[in-house]
């Protein structure tokens, strides 16, 4: 939420593969929280697709690159954050 508020165009949350997390259920909890944030964003009229969660292992470099490219494309389609257009902290925006 804070990142979006500061003007980020999108936020990618990367978690371990489901069922294969050192922290056991941390990735599952994160998944629920990301869905919760998307719900909040929907209720305030902000594109929920600007937040997404992906699951991959630490050894999947090429998959990570693929995910980042995919997310970047998705965000490019959505365009810049409406908050940046509205003058949110540009210097902090990612």
């Amino acid at each position, binding site marked *: *939420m*804070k990142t*979006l508020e500061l003007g980020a165009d999108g936020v990618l949350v990367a978690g371990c593969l489901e069922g294969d997390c050192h922290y056991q259920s941390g990735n599952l909890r994160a998944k629920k929280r990301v869905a919760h944030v998307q719900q909040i*964003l929907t*209720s*305030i009229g*902000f594109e929920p697709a600007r937040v997404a969660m992906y699951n991959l292992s630490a050894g999947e470099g090429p998959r990570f690159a693929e995910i980042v490219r995919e997310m970047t494309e998705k965000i490019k389609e959505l365009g810049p954050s*409406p*908050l940046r257009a*509205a003058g949110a902290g540009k210097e902090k925006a990612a």
Partner: protein
Amino acid sequence: MIMAKPKPIEEIINEVKNFRKILIAGCDGCVTVCEAGGLKEVQILASALRIFFKQQGTDMAIDEISLTRQCDRPYVTQLDDKVDQYDAVVSLACGAGVQFLAETYKRKVILPGVNTCFMGVTEERGVWSERCAGCGACVLATTGGICPIARCSKRMANGPCGGSANGKCEVNKEIPCAWQLIYERLEELGQLDRFEHPVDPKDWSPSRDGGPRKIVKEVSQL
């Protein structure tokens, strides 16, 4: 503890849209435990409101704070040097906290950010359920420690009613029949003779029927 649920954000937006500087005030007590109005929820709500109003092009300043308790004067007064800076305060405390803020800061608009629901317990992380209705005359000694006022949909003093089926309440099949629970517990305790002596109708005067209640413990007064 007292359980609450966050109000829909659309309702809060509607409450605050005409102000320009607001404070979101959480409470570190009960509503923190039931994850409705603690500092975490304050931060999430404030962030969501800032995103919403920024998107609308509305210049709205939204600050965050959480008080130790909003139902105790020494903690409420933590806002003494801050409250004048704001057009309104959205309190994420229970209804008691909201009212105490309003009583303390008589000229300030104090708005509720949660719906206060009941007194209950944490069954598991993320699940809270009702246990006590604050009736003012506890009967748990004769009902196996299970409250027929808070947990029977009809608040029956002598149950179960005819709507109890397979241990569930007719109001909703997800609700356990309190009187079934009471029967099973009294059976375990060897106290089934309780059912041989129906109790008299409950005196509701210590409850809400006697009007708003107050407790005065003289020995504790300064």
